């Protein structure tokens, strides 16, 4: 039995309960055993005490969309490097996309990942399993066996299932096992050769555009199929006002649908591409400033449930290319929180809304007991200095890849300490 730990004098922000006040948390055996709000806590004998000095104590972040290179592309990212990056960014759990080599479409691989991550990663790794074998969009995988092995949800990762009938089967079958379907919505024909948002800017750059309808058309289809099959459905990531309208309408009728957004689509717009900067080549593409603002409004309105990093490590071989030929994706585990805090500092969104989308909402969608500060919950906690100034530089990046869309960005707010299961796994050295 480890020593009890008290985090005292903390501003406890727990979106699940609506708490935002000074207090203390007692941690025993990796779980939160007591919570004292409004005053100092009694300290048990032999307890270790951390004085938070008024810093924010929040549930650790749960990132619903992270790509890892292990197995198959360890030079991009390993479970160890992704885990180190995660806890440095305040992410205590992340859902790992099945887009690996081989694809995570078999229970044995889920089992392998869980065992390996336990040893290698300081953050909890929650494997997602493929909906279709090899992410090929043809045959569904063994949902029941995958769930038994420990997969938290089903997704084809960066791939979008084109066949409505196959998706309908998958949803119906997933509903049997109460497995959430997390689906990236992109109509392949409309995406075509497109590499950025369709519009004047793409035209000026001479790049092929991706219309908003490439997202809204499959989303409308998915939402109807979700209602038909009664599956728990999560639109992996949306980027347009049209998608928000579809979700808003669907959610009033069907409470088991939800939606996520990449932090990139909340904080950046297509102008960041500038002169063909490939670190801003993303899927869904960065849209216009109007779209971004509409997404912020959708987050505030609860139409968008979760914010994730869309962490996607890519090496310079595939990124230092002409824009159309470069791979999609940017890393984001280490910048997720700081980027989200930009929305708080700018006054657009309050702290609790931002944290809710990265803590209790993902936990609810995935059926996890983390993401909240409550008696009995796992002690996955982060201390945040809301005003801590820092700059994203190549030197500070823990990820094995360097493709950050926040290179050189000045940030305000940082994680000072991260605990997973009551154990401190990260302390800011500065």
């Amino acid at each position, binding site marked *: 039995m480890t020593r009890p730990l008290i985090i005292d004098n903390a501003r406890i922000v727990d979106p699940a309960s609506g708490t935002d006040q000074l207090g203390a948390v007692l941690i025993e055996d990796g779980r939160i055993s007591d919570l004292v709000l409004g005053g100092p806590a009694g300290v048990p004998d032999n307890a270790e005490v951390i004085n938070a000095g008024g810093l924010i104590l929040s549930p650790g972040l749960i990132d619903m969309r992270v790509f890892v290179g292990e197995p198959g592309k360890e030079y991009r990212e390993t479970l160890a490097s992704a885990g180190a990056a995660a806890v440095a960014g305040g992410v205590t759990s992340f859902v790992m996309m099945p887009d690996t080599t081989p694809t995570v479409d078999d229970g044995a691989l889920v089992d392998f990942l869980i065992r390996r991550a336990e040893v290698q990663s300081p953050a909890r790794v929650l494997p997602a399993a493929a909906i279709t074998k090899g992410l090929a969009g043809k045959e569904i995988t063994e949902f029941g066996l995958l769930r038994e092995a420990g997969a938290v949800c089903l997704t084809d990762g960066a791939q979008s299932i084109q066949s409505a009938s196959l998706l309908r089967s998958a949803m119906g079958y997933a509903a049997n096992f109460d497995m959430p379907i997390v689906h990236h919505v992109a109509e392949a024909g409309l995406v075509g050769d497109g590499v950025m948002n*369709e*519009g*004047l*800017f*793409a*035209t*000026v*750059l*001479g*790049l*092929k*555009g991706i219309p908003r309808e490439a997202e809204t058309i499959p989303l409308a289809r998915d939402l109807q199929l979700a209602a038909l099959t009664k599956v728990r459905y999560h639109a992996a990531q949306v980027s347009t006002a049209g998608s928000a309208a579809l979700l808003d309408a669907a959610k009033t009728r069907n409470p088991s649908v939800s939606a996520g957004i990449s932090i990139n689509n909340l904080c950046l717009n297509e102008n960041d591409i500038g*002169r*063909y900067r490939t670190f801003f080549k993303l899927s869904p593409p960065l849209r216009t400033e109007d779209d971004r603002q509409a997404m912020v409004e959708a987050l505030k309105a609860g139409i968008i449930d979760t914010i994730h990093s869309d962490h996607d490590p890519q090496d310079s*071989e595939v990124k*230092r*290319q*002409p*824009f*159309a*030929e*470069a791979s999609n994706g940017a890393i984001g585990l280490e910048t997720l929180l700081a980027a989200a805090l930009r929305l708080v500092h700018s006054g657009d969104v309050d702290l609790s809304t931002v944290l809710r989308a990265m803590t209790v909402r993902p936990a609810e969608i995935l059926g996890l007991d983390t993401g909240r500060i409550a008696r009995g919950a796992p002690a996955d906690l982060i201390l945040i200095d809301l005003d801590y100034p820092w700059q994203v530089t190549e030197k500070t990046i823990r990820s094995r890849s360097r493709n950050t869309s926040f290179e050189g960005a000045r940030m305000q707010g940082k994680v000072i300490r991260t605990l997973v299961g009551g154990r401190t796994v990260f302390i800011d050295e500065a």
Partner: protein
Amino acid sequence: MPQSSPARFSGDFPPFQQRHLISIADLKQHEIVDLLDRAERMIEISRQERKSLPTLSGKTQINLFFEPSTRTQSSFEIAGKRLGALVVNMSVKTSSVSKGETLVDTAATLNAMRPDVLVVRHSAAGAVELLSQKVGCSVVNAGDGAHEHPTQALLDALTIRNHKGTLAGLTVAICGDIANSRVARSNLLLLGALNVRTRVIAPRSLLPAGIENLATEVFTDMKEGLKGADVVMMLRLQHERANGKMVPSVREYYRFYGLDEEKLSWAKPDAIVMHPGPMNRGVEIDPAIADGERSVITDQVEMGVAVRMAVLDALLPARNEP
């Protein structure tokens, strides 16, 4: 007044402030006019018995073409040679997979050979920009994907100016595959910068998003669009790629958008006809028009050499000389 360097033909032009020519969008209005004026004098040189100037003597120019183009490559080659540069042509055959790899690797290799200017054509928009970030010399964009083809726009403007005496007050209609055309983009930017009235005419399927912000007017009908035009600029239709998707067939395209005698009659009586080449006779243009008296297409080729001489001369200043 004595010139500082009698050998330098362009000594009486102010120093050109750009290091590369990647995009018309990077040029200020006076820089565009400056290049056109410089080119004017290069026409004189090119028409002399002795068509040479020593201004690039001792300099190395590499023409790096990832996409084949006999016309543009030889135009740049002749331009460089008339100015005394050592010109090396490199045609790089690439598979679609290894294009970018080749690009960055080739950039490093070529840079080590210490060229003074690289003239680059690539099938991907932004590739020339990327390459310019990796080398220590001047880079001229000879066409990058559907992005830009700046020397084409300059030679088009020079051709128009020579035929019409001025660019001011003119209406230029650009017709055809605007969506995939770097020529259209560079021309719209350049003509826009010189306050020339621009029109684009194409079926909706060949018009890119936001084009109304780049052209003064947008038309889908040739009759309306050509009315009152001083210049009719036809674009090549990549019909192998467009057929059945962007347009149903060549014959339907020709019927509604191919420039023939009747359609040309809708433009001003003294309107000139241009085409960046290579032409698809019978697809976007009637052979009789292409080779007719209102066509200035061969003049464009001549202006091309002059413009490229002017660009090379402007980008490679005398300060590098001993």
